[in-house]
């Protein structure tokens, strides 16, 4: 459902991505691997409209979304839980989640349903729902960020290193949650440092290096590919 072709993008006229092609299929978990600085975050930012690409096309469900503003892309069904979280620190956890559903605000009952789903997924957030999100610990904030993306009721969920800064137990929960979310038919595009675990839950994977796709294939193949194991999984 998401097709990226020939995408180049970067910062201040310096390209970080060079003509990248990837696709994320409906209802699948697609994982993006790569060393630090290989361009995963840049890729996501470009897809969700935070960065303007210098070349290439992005299509979502057959419609071109290249160069549309970020706010419009959320409306089109792509939600992005970004690196660095970008919460509204002075607002309560609940308000953060409610604003996540800003583009779907008309459908009140669906919103309430989504909110409850998030609280089920991360019970601690329910406990802290009236606290300003800025006073939460790093890990708790990460949960809010994912939750906020979920309340946008997306067809495709982009998660940029959702396990960053999370306790192992929570990482497991989060990845389980990702599987859970995926099972409801939402496509997931995931970047993870924890490549082994990510590949275990994913259907398909890409390996980026210096802004180019160097390897791609089914998650299983990648997990057992010796090159990948050596270079990216530290085995």
């Amino acid at each position, binding site marked *: 459902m998401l097709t990226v072709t020939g995408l180049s993008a970067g910062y201040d006229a310096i390209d970080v991505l060079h003509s990248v092609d990837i696709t994320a299929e409906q209802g699948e978990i697609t994982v993006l691997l*790569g*060393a*630090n*600085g290989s361009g995963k975050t840049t890729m996501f930012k470009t897809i969700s409209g935070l960065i303007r690409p210098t070349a290439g096309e992005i299509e979502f469900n057959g419609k071109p979304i290249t160069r549309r503003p970020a706010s419009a892309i959320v409306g089109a069904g792509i939600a992005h839980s970004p*690196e*660095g979280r970008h919460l509204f620190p002075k607002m309560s956890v609940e308000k953060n989640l409610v604003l996540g559903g800003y583009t779907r605000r008309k459908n009140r009952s669906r919103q309430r349903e989504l909110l409850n789903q998030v609280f089920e997924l991360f019970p*601690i957030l329910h406990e802290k729902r009236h606290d300003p999100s800025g*006073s*939460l*610990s*790093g*890990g*708790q904030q*990460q949960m809010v960020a994912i939750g906020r993306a979920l309340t946008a009721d997306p067809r495709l969920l982009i998660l940029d*290193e959702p396990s*960053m*800064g*999370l*306790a*192992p*137990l*929570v*990482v*497991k929960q989060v990845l389980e949650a990702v599987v859970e979310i995926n099972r409801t038919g939402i496509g997931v595009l995931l970047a993870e*440092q*924890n*490549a*082994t675990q990510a590949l275990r839950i994913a259907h398909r994977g890409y390996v980026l290096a210096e802004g180019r796709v160097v390897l791609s294939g089914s998650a299983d193949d990648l997990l057992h590919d010796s090159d990948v194991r050596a*270079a*990216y*999984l*530290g*085995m």
Partner: protein
Amino acid sequence: MTLLEVRGLGKQFGGLHAVRDVDLDVREGEITAIIGPNGAGKSTVFNLLSGFYRPTAGTVTFKGRDITGKKPYTTVRDGIARTFQTTNLFEDSTVLDNVLSGRIVRSRSTVFGAVLQTPSFRREEQYNLTKAMEALEFAGIAHYRDDLAGEVPQEVQKRVAIAVALATEPDLLLLDEPAGGITEDETVGFGDLIRQIVARGITVCLVEHKMSMIMSLADRILVLDHGQTIAFGTPDEIKRDPKVIEAYLGADDAEEEGEE
């Protein structure tokens, strides 16, 4: 020998006990790790040790001297350096200048020395430069020295932060998630770096969620939950501690992480 002695440490934010009655002995030349679920109070403990927060209870003794509630600039002078959970650098300065900033606390030169270019001032500047380059080389990032710190890759930034801390010539280094956001592969490199730091005689305190790193590096582990100590011991002890498994590691994870 005990380098840092913490007794009954507590910090309250409004009604929330972020840290409560924590005792800890950090032995010289060892790596002490602090782990625990998110929001357990790990970063808060670091903030208390380095003087960024004032404790609401308890004492901190460093090298036999009471440093409870001292300002950060005195604790750094005393020999405690730290890095932040989210990397924090002077982004508009070059990598070299960042590390040179770490030398400030060890410098005695004044504006007047700088204006008059006194010999002692020049000698000191030269010495600082040597020290800074040494720290850069040690961290393996000397070739980035003239790049702006905000423009180098994440991993390099993390190394710069460590180099800056090293340049202050600490006896105790507090690292808050040094490998956060780093791939597993590069995490191994960070582990090596931390080992080398200890080999130079610097004691390290470490907060991390990467169990492979913690288990292979730490001499002793403190486990916090809800601001309180739930366990303290060697990695082997911690791995098997049912309370830790329940609160933090998760049942099968302990074994899995152990394999790697």
